[in-house]
Protein backbone atom coordinates (compact mmCIF):
# COMPACT_ATOMS: atom_id res chain seq x y z
CA UNK A 1 0.00 0.00 0.00
CA UNK A 2 0.98 3.68 0.13
CA UNK A 3 0.51 6.55 2.56
CA UNK A 4 -0.85 9.62 0.84
CA UNK A 5 -1.38 13.10 2.22
CA UNK A 6 -3.19 16.06 0.73
CA UNK A 7 -3.04 19.75 1.48
CA UNK A 8 -5.20 21.60 2.26
CA UNK A 9 -7.72 19.25 3.85
CA UNK A 10 -10.46 21.81 3.23
CA UNK A 11 -10.88 25.35 2.01
CA UNK A 12 -13.50 27.97 1.35
CA UNK A 13 -12.77 30.14 -1.64
CA UNK A 14 -14.32 33.04 -3.49
CA UNK A 15 -15.51 32.64 -7.04
CA UNK A 16 -13.01 33.68 -9.68
CA UNK A 17 -9.99 32.66 -7.61
CA UNK A 18 -7.76 29.57 -7.96
CA UNK A 19 -6.71 26.90 -5.49
CA UNK A 20 -3.76 24.54 -5.74
CA UNK A 21 -4.08 21.16 -4.04
CA UNK A 22 -0.98 19.18 -3.16
CA UNK A 23 -0.64 15.41 -3.04
CA UNK A 24 2.36 13.72 -1.42
CA UNK A 25 3.03 9.96 -1.32
CA UNK A 26 5.53 8.14 0.88
CA UNK A 27 7.07 6.10 -1.94
CA UNK A 28 7.92 6.56 -5.59
CA UNK A 29 5.03 5.81 -7.91
CA UNK A 30 4.68 6.03 -11.66
CA UNK A 31 1.01 6.86 -11.98
CA UNK A 32 -1.00 9.35 -9.96
CA UNK A 33 -4.62 10.24 -10.53
CA UNK A 34 -6.92 13.10 -9.63
CA UNK A 35 -10.64 12.55 -9.01
CA UNK A 36 -13.57 14.80 -8.27
CA UNK A 37 -16.44 13.81 -6.01
CA UNK A 38 -19.33 16.23 -6.27
CA UNK A 39 -21.72 16.45 -3.30
CA UNK A 40 -23.56 13.18 -2.82
CA UNK A 41 -22.02 11.70 -5.95
CA UNK A 42 -19.51 9.08 -6.94
CA UNK A 43 -15.95 9.70 -8.07
CA UNK A 44 -15.08 10.92 -11.55
CA UNK A 45 -11.56 10.78 -12.93
CA UNK A 46 -10.20 14.19 -13.90
CA UNK A 47 -6.78 13.22 -15.20
CA UNK A 48 -3.82 10.88 -14.99
CA UNK A 49 -0.48 12.40 -14.05
CA UNK A 50 2.72 10.62 -15.03
CA UNK A 51 6.10 12.00 -14.11
CA UNK A 52 7.94 13.48 -17.06
CA UNK A 53 4.95 13.83 -19.34
CA UNK A 54 1.86 15.95 -19.73
CA UNK A 55 -1.20 14.91 -17.79
CA UNK A 56 -3.89 13.04 -19.68
CA UNK A 57 -7.35 14.52 -19.17
CA UNK A 58 -10.67 12.71 -19.31
CA UNK A 59 -13.57 13.87 -21.40
CA UNK A 60 -15.15 16.97 -19.92
CA UNK A 61 -12.00 18.18 -18.18
CA UNK A 62 -9.46 20.59 -19.70
CA UNK A 63 -5.98 21.69 -18.79
CA UNK A 64 -6.88 25.38 -18.62
CA UNK A 65 -9.38 24.68 -15.86
CA UNK A 66 -7.46 21.93 -14.03
CA UNK A 67 -3.72 22.34 -14.64
CA UNK A 68 -1.67 19.54 -13.11
CA UNK A 69 2.00 19.33 -12.24
CA UNK A 70 4.03 16.19 -11.58
CA UNK A 71 7.58 17.29 -10.82
CA UNK A 72 8.79 14.00 -9.33
CA UNK A 73 7.70 10.47 -8.44
CA UNK A 74 6.25 11.36 -5.02
CA UNK A 75 4.38 14.63 -5.58
CA UNK A 76 1.67 16.19 -7.72
CA UNK A 77 -0.52 19.29 -7.66
CA UNK A 78 -3.94 20.02 -9.08
CA UNK A 79 -5.08 23.60 -9.54
CA UNK A 80 -8.75 24.47 -9.78
CA UNK A 81 -8.78 27.69 -11.78
CA UNK A 82 -11.28 30.52 -12.00
CA UNK A 83 -13.55 28.76 -9.56
CA UNK A 84 -17.33 28.88 -9.52
CA UNK A 85 -19.77 27.37 -7.00
CA UNK A 86 -20.13 24.36 -9.33
CA UNK A 87 -16.52 23.47 -8.50
CA UNK A 88 -17.48 22.79 -4.88
CA UNK A 89 -16.47 19.16 -4.45
CA UNK A 90 -14.07 16.81 -2.78
CA UNK A 91 -10.88 16.42 -4.79
CA UNK A 92 -8.95 13.19 -4.23
CA UNK A 93 -5.61 12.04 -5.47
CA UNK A 94 -4.68 8.40 -5.78
CA UNK A 95 -1.60 6.41 -6.70
CA UNK A 96 -1.19 3.15 -8.53
CA UNK A 97 0.68 0.65 -6.34
CA UNK A 98 1.99 -2.37 -8.17
CA UNK A 99 0.25 -2.96 -11.46
CA UNK A 100 -3.33 -2.93 -10.41
CA UNK A 101 -4.43 -1.23 -7.19
CA UNK A 102 -5.10 2.43 -6.44
CA UNK A 103 -4.79 3.92 -3.00
CA UNK A 104 -6.41 7.21 -2.15
CA UNK A 105 -5.53 10.27 -0.18
CA UNK A 106 -7.91 11.76 2.40
CA UNK A 107 -9.30 14.33 -0.02
CA UNK A 108 -9.58 18.10 -0.14
CA UNK A 109 -13.02 19.53 0.58
CA UNK A 110 -13.53 22.67 -1.47
CA UNK A 111 -16.39 25.12 -1.06
CA UNK A 112 -16.69 27.98 -3.52
CA UNK A 113 -18.85 30.94 -2.53
Amino acid at each position, binding site marked *: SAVISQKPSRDICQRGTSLTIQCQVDSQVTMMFWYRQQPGQ*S*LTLIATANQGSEATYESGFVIDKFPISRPNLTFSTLTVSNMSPEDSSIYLCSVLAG*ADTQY*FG*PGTRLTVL
Partner: protein
Amino acid sequence: AQSVTQLDSQVPVFEEAPVELRCNYSSSVSVYLFWYVQYPNQGLQLLLKYLSGSTLVKGINGFEAEFNKSQTSFHLRKPSVHISDTAEYFCAVSEAQKLVFGQGTRLTINP
Protein backbone atom coordinates in the same frame (compact mmCIF):
# COMPACT_ATOMS: atom_id res chain seq x y z
CA ALA B 1 -16.26 1.61 -22.07
CA GLN B 2 -16.85 -0.29 -18.91
CA SER B 3 -19.56 0.64 -16.46
CA VAL B 4 -20.52 -0.32 -12.93
CA THR B 5 -24.01 -0.44 -11.49
CA GLN B 6 -24.68 -0.52 -7.79
CA LEU B 7 -28.27 -1.60 -7.54
CA ASP B 8 -29.06 -0.04 -4.17
CA SER B 9 -28.39 3.58 -3.32
CA GLN B 10 -29.19 3.00 0.35
CA VAL B 11 -29.25 -0.12 2.48
CA PRO B 12 -30.50 0.10 6.09
CA VAL B 13 -29.85 -2.91 8.32
CA PHE B 14 -29.95 -3.68 11.99
CA GLU B 15 -26.79 -4.18 13.97
CA GLU B 16 -25.48 -7.78 13.92
CA ALA B 17 -27.62 -8.60 10.86
CA PRO B 18 -26.05 -9.83 7.61
CA VAL B 19 -25.76 -7.49 4.65
CA GLU B 20 -25.18 -7.77 0.90
CA LEU B 21 -24.32 -4.80 -1.29
CA ARG B 22 -24.87 -5.53 -4.95
CA CYS B 23 -22.59 -4.60 -7.83
CA ASN B 24 -22.81 -5.46 -11.52
CA TYR B 25 -20.31 -4.51 -14.18
CA SER B 26 -20.25 -4.50 -17.94
CA SER B 27 -17.19 -5.85 -19.64
CA SER B 28 -16.32 -8.30 -22.35
CA VAL B 29 -12.74 -8.77 -21.22
CA SER B 30 -10.96 -9.82 -18.08
CA VAL B 31 -11.50 -7.35 -15.30
CA TYR B 32 -10.07 -6.25 -12.03
CA LEU B 33 -12.78 -5.44 -9.48
CA PHE B 34 -12.60 -3.46 -6.26
CA TRP B 35 -14.68 -2.42 -3.30
CA TYR B 36 -13.78 0.78 -1.48
CA VAL B 37 -15.33 2.24 1.67
CA GLN B 38 -15.66 5.92 2.49
CA TYR B 39 -16.34 6.77 6.12
CA PRO B 40 -17.90 10.17 6.83
CA ASN B 41 -15.54 13.01 6.00
CA GLN B 42 -12.74 10.69 4.95
CA GLY B 43 -11.08 9.47 1.76
CA LEU B 44 -11.49 6.04 0.21
CA GLN B 45 -10.12 2.92 1.82
CA LEU B 46 -9.61 -0.32 -0.08
CA LEU B 47 -11.80 -3.12 1.30
CA LEU B 48 -10.89 -5.89 -1.11
CA LYS B 49 -10.06 -6.66 -4.70
CA TYR B 50 -10.43 -9.40 -7.28
CA LEU B 51 -7.64 -9.78 -9.79
CA SER B 52 -7.73 -13.48 -10.65
CA GLY B 53 -7.89 -16.89 -9.04
CA SER B 54 -10.42 -17.77 -6.36
CA THR B 55 -13.77 -16.15 -6.96
CA LEU B 56 -14.34 -15.58 -3.24
CA VAL B 57 -12.14 -12.82 -1.92
CA LYS B 58 -11.82 -11.75 1.68
CA GLY B 59 -11.08 -8.23 2.75
CA ILE B 60 -10.68 -6.13 5.83
CA ASN B 61 -13.22 -5.68 8.61
CA GLY B 62 -14.86 -9.05 7.96
CA PHE B 63 -16.08 -8.23 4.45
CA GLU B 64 -15.95 -10.63 1.53
CA ALA B 65 -17.05 -10.54 -2.10
CA GLU B 66 -17.77 -13.13 -4.75
CA PHE B 67 -16.84 -12.69 -8.39
CA ASN B 68 -19.44 -14.22 -10.70
CA LYS B 69 -18.37 -14.02 -14.32
CA SER B 70 -21.56 -15.44 -15.81
CA GLN B 71 -23.69 -12.89 -13.97
CA THR B 72 -21.07 -10.13 -14.24
CA SER B 73 -21.48 -9.44 -10.56
CA PHE B 74 -19.21 -8.71 -7.61
CA HIS B 75 -21.48 -8.50 -4.57
CA LEU B 76 -20.08 -7.51 -1.18
CA ARG B 77 -21.19 -9.35 1.95
CA LYS B 78 -20.71 -9.30 5.69
CA PRO B 79 -22.33 -11.88 7.99
CA SER B 80 -22.80 -9.51 10.93
CA VAL B 81 -22.54 -5.74 10.73
CA HIS B 82 -21.52 -3.28 13.39
CA ILE B 83 -22.43 0.35 13.94
CA SER B 84 -18.93 1.27 12.79
CA ASP B 85 -19.69 -0.13 9.31
CA THR B 86 -21.89 2.87 8.61
CA ALA B 87 -20.33 4.37 5.49
CA GLU B 88 -20.57 4.78 1.72
CA TYR B 89 -19.40 1.77 -0.27
CA PHE B 90 -18.15 2.02 -3.84
CA CYS B 91 -17.68 -0.78 -6.34
CA ALA B 92 -15.14 -0.11 -9.10
CA VAL B 93 -13.74 -1.78 -12.19
CA SER B 94 -10.27 -1.16 -13.57
CA GLU B 95 -9.98 -0.19 -17.24
CA ALA B 96 -6.45 0.47 -18.51
CA GLN B 97 -5.39 1.10 -14.92
CA LYS B 98 -8.12 3.73 -14.49
CA LEU B 99 -10.99 3.14 -12.11
CA VAL B 100 -14.63 3.42 -13.12
CA PHE B 101 -16.84 3.72 -10.05
CA GLY B 102 -20.42 2.81 -9.35
CA GLN B 103 -22.73 5.38 -7.83
CA GLY B 104 -22.17 4.13 -4.31
CA THR B 105 -24.34 2.47 -1.67
CA ARG B 106 -24.93 4.14 1.66
CA LEU B 107 -24.98 1.51 4.39
CA THR B 108 -26.81 2.60 7.53
CA ILE B 109 -26.70 0.45 10.63
CA ASN B 110 -29.57 0.78 13.08
CA PRO B 111 -29.13 -0.30 16.72
